[in-house]
């Protein structure tokens, strides 16, 4: 019963706020947030039931034999549900403050609630069709929310780009679902996991995993389907925090973890997933070093961290990958919300080159950001340390030394660009009054400065400020897990490992003998992190550097390699290969097919009936004699019939 409530309350909220938004006005925010908070409470209340063996099940409808839809809450779904509702609740509260004064205040919360409902559909389904439905719905919610300020053309384009790339992923999952249904004949997870070993050939298994992974790659912004995520930052910051950091982009991780039995049985699939995850982690980190927009830096860092998660679940270290998701949700949401506080305070300035010295003006934001940065770098004691090291060491444990190296190097680069962000934003002198061209900003609108971001409230309505605590309290609450929650997995018998003990099937290939212990590995990672910190300090944080900040920033902007600025030219490649031909085809249809084929067909119908009319009209001469002639012809026909019947074919009747 409560399980149904957990699933449907956000939908109720979404519909209510969408239908009565104009009437509810500023009540929409508290209502939306309260519903999600109730959802969190429900999830907590269901803890015992969910952690029992077998989890909690609630049926919905059985359509065909083998096609029964229902909800389930087991340990995996429970973790995701708690994050979605818990972090979601905090972000909703934050949004009441952030979106205050926006014209479409109620619509925002309607969409956010709808998103939570869609995400719950995804994680609570006990069948692969429900997963697919939820998958599509979160893509839709993402489209709504990225393009929330739809008067901005860049936002609309970004929303469309995100949706189209997600559809590519949907196709992959659909093929996998088709194969599953064709071979196994059922859609429920229980049936699939029970029968796939006998029903799938190894080739089929790989194809199914491949199809599922294409969906993951699109949804979780893995290479090569990652280009939508930086553009998705056009949406409001709470959206970026909830959807593009904590929950939606991690749906791919959930999918792989959910289908762990399949992945454990196919070594090829795991190699593929691990490789893509590692590649994404590395390339995302490198690109993060080249960004100047605070949200884009965080977007690339998200891409990179999800690469870690995918790598983790891909190589078989499921609980490590899921744990990294768990900690990442907290610190990434907190980083985004803090960035939102900064942006809000600086009147929608997003370019870090125009920030600086905010440590003194906004101490709370500085402390929060510092906590998040320490967590994401994996500094010992903070939450990221435990989860990231678990993933990296898991790569070594499962016999992937190259992925181990990638993980370690990426950790160093992560440290570099995150501390770069911290130094450039919070240290030195405030550069907001400096002329943009002195800083090397050539196209202010592309760099996300105040001229272009979409907060419309200032122009439209009298600006009444919401109390600041609405934004700072959620951030403050989030600092706690950012710092501390990693201790859940401390030690070889950490609570987390016990929580998922026996839940995920181990991979077939046995762990190889590891050359170094995990303690040594952590030390190695820490060393690399320290190196990254040192380089960042020398380039951005040293007192000599800070005095000269403007010139140095300009130099760096000018000298940034074009490859990095254009994000490895992925966008250009997609544009040339896919977008332009599609546009050309559409143009050809418009110029040629539409007027000359379709319209011509329609015209021809009219012309033909006119021609037939002319033809028949030619018989109507008005002459009696002509009519008499045709009557005589009829007589001939009758006579001929009788002649034929009687004379030439023997005696007729």
């Amino acid at each position, binding site marked *: 019963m409560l399980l149904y409530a957990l699933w449907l309350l956000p939908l109720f909220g979404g519909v209510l706020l969408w239908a009565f938004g104009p009437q509810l006005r500023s009540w929409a925010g508290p209502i939306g947030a309260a519903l999600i908070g109730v959802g969190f409470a429900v999830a907590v209340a269901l803890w015992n039931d969910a952690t029992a063996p077998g989890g909690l099940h609630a049926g919905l409808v059985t359509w065909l034999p083998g096609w029964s839809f229902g909800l389930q809450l087991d340990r995996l779904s429970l973790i995701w549900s708690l994050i979605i509702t818990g972090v979601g609740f905090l972000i909703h509260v934050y949004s009441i403050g952030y979106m205050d004064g926006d014209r479409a205040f109620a619509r925002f919360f309607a969409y956010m609630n709808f998103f939570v409902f869609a995400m719950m559909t995804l994680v609570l389904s006990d069948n692969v069709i429900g997963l697919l439905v939820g998958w599509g719905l979160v893509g839709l919610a993402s489209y709504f929310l990225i393009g929330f300020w739809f008067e901005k053309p860049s936002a609309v384009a970004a929303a469309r780009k995100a949706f189209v790339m997600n559809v590519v992923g949907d196709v992959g999952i659909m093929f996998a679902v088709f194969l599953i249904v064709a071979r196994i004949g059922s859609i429920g997870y229980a049936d699939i996991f029970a029968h796939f070993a006998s029903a799938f050939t190894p080739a089929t298994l790989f194809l199914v995993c491949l199809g599922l992974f294409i969906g993951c790659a699109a949804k979780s912004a893995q290479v090569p389907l990652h280009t939508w995520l930086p553009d998705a930052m056009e949406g409001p910051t709470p959206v970026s925090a909830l959807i593009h950091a904590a929950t939606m982009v991690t749906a791919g991780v959930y999918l792989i973890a959910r289908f762990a039995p399949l992945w454990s049985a196919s070594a090829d699939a795991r190699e593929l997933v691990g490789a893509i995850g590692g590649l994404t982690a590395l390339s995302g980190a490198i690109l993060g070093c080249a960004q100047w927009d605070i949200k884009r830096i965080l977007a690339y860092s998200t891409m990179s961290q999800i690469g870690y998660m995918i790598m983790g679940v891909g190589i078989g270290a499921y609980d490590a990958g899921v744990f990294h998701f768990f900690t990442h949700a907290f610190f990434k949401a907190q980083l985004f919300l803090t960035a939102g506080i900064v942006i809000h305070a600086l009147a929608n300035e997003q370019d870090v080159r125009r920030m600086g010295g905010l440590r003194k003006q906004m101490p709370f934001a500085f402390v929060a950001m510092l906590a998040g940065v320490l967590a994401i770098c994996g500094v010992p004691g903070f939450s990221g340390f435990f989860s990231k090291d678990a993933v990296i060491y898991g790569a070594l444990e499962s016999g992937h030394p190259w992925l181990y190296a990638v993980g370690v190097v990426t950790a160093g680069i992560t440290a570099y660009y995150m501390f770069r962000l911290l130094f450039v934003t919070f240290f030195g002198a405030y550069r907001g009054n400096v002329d943009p061209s002195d800083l090397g900003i050539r196209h202010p609108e592309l760099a996300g400065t105040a001229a272009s971001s979409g907060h419309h409230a200032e122009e439209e309505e009298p600006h009444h400020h919401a109390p600041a605590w609405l934004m700072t309290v959620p951030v403050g609450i989030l600092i706690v897990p950012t710092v501390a929650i990693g201790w859940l997995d401390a030690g070889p018998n950490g609570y987390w490992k016990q929580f998922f003990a026996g839940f995920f099937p181990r991979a077939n290939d046995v762990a190889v003998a590891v050359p170094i212990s995990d303690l040594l590995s952590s030390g190695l990672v820490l060393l690399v992190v320290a190196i990254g910190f040192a380089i960042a300090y020398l380039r951005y944080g040293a007192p000599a550097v800070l005095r000269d900040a403007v010139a140095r920033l300009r130099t760096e902007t000018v000298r940034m390699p074009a490859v990095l600025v254009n994000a490895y030219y992925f966008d250009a490649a997609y544009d040339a290969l896919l977008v332009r031909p599609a546009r050309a085809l559409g143009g050809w249809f418009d110029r040629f097919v539409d007027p000359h084929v379709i319209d011509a067909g329609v015209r021809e119908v009219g012309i033909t009936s006119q021609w037939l009319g002319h033809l028949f009209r030619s018989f109507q*001469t008005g002459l009696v004699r002509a009519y008499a002639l045709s009557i005589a012809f009829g007589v001939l026909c009758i006579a001929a019939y009788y002649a034929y019947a009687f004379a030439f074919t023997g*005696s007729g009747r």
Partner: protein
Amino acid sequence: MIAFWILAVLMIASAVFTVSAKKPVYSVIGLLANFVCLAGMYLELQAEFLAVIQIVVYSGAILILFVFVIALLSSGVRPFDVGPDRAPRILIPASILAGLTLIAITATVVRTPSALAKVPVGTTGEANAFGSVGDFGVALFTTNLLPFEVTAFILMVAVIGVVLIAGDDDAVTGSRRKPRRPGKREPIVKDRVA
């Protein structure tokens, strides 16, 4: 037998003459000849009553009707003028059609031969011999009474129709006088028969 052939030739000749004569009066004469020969044919086929009817009704009534209408239309000493021929050379397809029809009918009948039934040839005046008045009367008034009555009805309809179509515009028939204006009383007929 000779009678048949003579009559047949005369019939065909008169028919051709009827169809191709220049003046309608000539056509009427040709038609008259045709009807008389046809009556002869009927006698050959022992349809005595019908032969007489043919002469009386067809030649005697219908042809006279034709003559009257010709007279009516040519009153004013106006020859029968004709306008421009709007369907020239229609004779060709017409004759082709007619010829084909002829061939079809001939082929049908020639290949399904039948013989005349043996019918007692009654002496003249015997009451109910085949084709005689009495025989025909019995058939008409007993077996085919309903068609007979319907025929009477048809004739009545024909008369009414002719009167309506070609009637005069005077007070007696009343079909074409001007409609009464409202408020004006119809004048009382002044003429009385003394």
